[in-house]
């Protein structure tokens, strides 16, 4: 079994530079999600792996073979498309069996393989049905079954569950992840949905404008975003990002948001060291903090900052409370009904260890080398 490597890959569509100097090492057995907005180059990357697009420069290797000059069928990858691409006149069984029979496998072996895959996918009861008689989720499972049955070195999936409704999508996320583990597959999965990426991936590669922004496991991406783009693309509710004047002090970072009379202290020596080491950010700094890394208190206490409740968004399990601090607006995750009405005074505490500083011009996080 094999690792996949993309080395210094470049791709243009006319004047459009869709992949820029891309390097990606996907280890055998990993579930890697390429995440980004539409047009970021993620689907082109996947298609280049499959051999459906050529690359203009660089290399693609699967195991010890260089494959970027090989046609798709010689790369030993299987591609699952977003749209169900089943043969309408064949039963689910025959659809899954198709690639095996095309390879000249004996009928007894075909039956064994198809039944094995059907068992894993829990579609044994559907094998005699034609695609038109299948529900959307079942159809997608058959499509996946057809890809899986060949036991390819890599499963390549392009938004395979994007067209399903929310409930089914949730179920399929779990099933696809299990399938990946049970089959010891290597999977590369493309999506624009950060929830899917966080939920399924061993590693997430976040792309924007053809450039890989960060390649890390979900916790690292979430807790230590490399730049502002990643910070705000991953996580819902979105990370708060506000302009901030900062100064390194012995005990941490002295920070002041616009409209604040007094600075406050972020007690984090590491962040202070990074601020000292960082070249002066000409465009200024932005402070980033996720809604769950802020606490609200009903009364003042040392280290807390006075703020006012602007808006309450109940989500049932918890509330998102929008508060005004200085001139900045911050969203805070609180227990359900912790704050009762807009206009109330509250006191805000930022978890310094989970507060980030970004260079506004480059977008880079000062913590990126943590």
């Amino acid at each position, binding site marked *: 079994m094999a690792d996949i490597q993309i080395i210094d890959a470049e791709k243009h569509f006319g004047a459009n530079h869709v992949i820029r100097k891309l390097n990606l090492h996907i280890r055998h057995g990993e579930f890697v999600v390429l995440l980004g*907005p539409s047009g970021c180059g993620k689907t082109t990357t996947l298609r280049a792996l499959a051999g459906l697009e050529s690359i203009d420069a660089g290399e693609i290797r699967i195991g010890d073979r260089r494959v970027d000059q090989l046609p798709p069928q010689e790369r030993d990858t299987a591609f699952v498309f977003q749209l169900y691409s089943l043969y309408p006149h064949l039963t689910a069984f025959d659809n899954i069996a198709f690639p095996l029979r095309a390879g000249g496998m004996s009928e007894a072996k075909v039956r064994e393989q198809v039944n094995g895959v059907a068992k894993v996918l829990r579609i044994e009861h559907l094998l005699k049905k034609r695609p038109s008689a299948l529900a959307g989720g079942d159809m997608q499972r058959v499509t996946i079954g057809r890809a899986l049955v060949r036991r390819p070195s890599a499963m390549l999936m392009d938004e395979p569950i994007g067209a399903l409704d*929310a409930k089914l999508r949730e179920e399929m996320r*779990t099933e696809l992840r299990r399938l990946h583990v049970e089959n010891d597959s290597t999977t590369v999965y493309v999506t624009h949905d950060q929830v899917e990426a966080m*939920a399924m991936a061993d590693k997430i590669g976040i792309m924007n404008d053809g450039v890989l922004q960060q390649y890390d496991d979900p916790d690292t991406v979430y807790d230590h975003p490399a730049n502002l783009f990643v910070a705000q693309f991953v*996580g819902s509710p979105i990370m708060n990002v506000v302009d901030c004047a900062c100064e390194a002090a012995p005990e941490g970072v002295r920070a002041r948001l616009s409209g604040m009379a007094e600075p406050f202290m972020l007690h984090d020596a590491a962040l202070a060291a990074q601020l000292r080491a960082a070249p002066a950010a000409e465009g200024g700094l932005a402070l980033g903090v996720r809604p769950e890394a802020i606490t609200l208190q009903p009364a003042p206490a040392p280290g807390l900052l006075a703020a006012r409740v602007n808006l309450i968004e109940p989500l049932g399990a918890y509330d998102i409370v929008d508060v005004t601090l200085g001139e900045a607006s911050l969203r805070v995750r609180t227990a359900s*009904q912790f704050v009762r009405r807009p206009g109330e005074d509250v006191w805000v505490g930022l978890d310094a260890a989970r507060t980030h500083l970004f260079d506004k011009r480059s977008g880079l996080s000062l913590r990126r080398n943590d």
Partner: protein
Amino acid sequence: MAAVSLHRVSKQFGAVHAVRDLTLDIANREFFVLLGPTGAGKTTTLRCIAGLEQPQTGDILIAGERVNDWSAAQRDVALVFQQYSLYPNYTVRENLAFPLKSKLRMLSPQEIEQRVARAAATVRISHLLERRTDRLSGGEMQRVSIGRAIVREPRVFLMDEPLSNLDAKLRELLRAELKGLQQRLETTLVFVTHDQVEAMTMGDRIGVVNKGELIQVGTPHEIYNQPANTFVASFVGTPAINLLDLQVDLARSRAHNGSLAFTLEPATCERLARVLPADGAVCFGIRPENVSLVAGGGLPGAIYGAENHGAEIVAVIESGGHRLRATVPAKTPTALNQPVQISFMQDKLHFFHPQSGERLRPH
């Protein structure tokens, strides 16, 4: 600004009952959300209020007056759709001014100018006034659509999935903006959506609609914490509530179904005693945030799947042939097939009738 009431409103399209005997009072200055799946009848209800559909029976009242026989224009309501219905060849300014140029209004050019400027500032598009609307992003277009509704200063705003075409981040921002806007304008707003997050976060009250019927009306807190039936319980909240059909044995303080069995706390037994059907069959509802992983003394199970959501993990646990979702803290170890034990916060258990799905009420 005005209250809106529907009294026993029904609307059929051929054999299809789009709205069945719907009665609803929406208060002046209320942000009211009609929530339901596709085909529930929520858009038809909104169109009946707007005067774009005529109900076969029932009354529609705006500010206490029956308006069934009034035209859409006479009702003085503004409708914002999912599709931005802007004039593509006109500038934002022209689009905003358009509804004010009607001869019926007899507004002076200065008055129109002022109102357009005010509306543009309210929805933060002042910098876009001279731009043609086909040069705008989706979010900007929807702001213009809302601005065009505001500029008329209608008695009621009606919005039909106005955020659905926008991407997730923008939806999140506009959600808060729209709620803030409604509070600042102190206006009555009826908002239709199939998205429970929108309903929960924006509504003062939510009316949950299914198959043409109004199932429950309540504040977001009531809808979430006291769902009237399993439909509402499942439709609202993500990850979805766990529903378990169990047999209750009060004498032994047990609830069980096959190999899944657990002890009922005294307080739970007390609550159940008041509502328990004669055959002891109950559908238990428990939200994922009220299920926790415990070191010992819980229901035995194994991790079937786990989704990292950054701020927390949603684990799917297989226990006694059932799959249950639990929201657990970030970084909790959740390897596939790892044995775990789970426990329920029993004061958060919901009890429903296993056949009808209705919330069990005291006898």
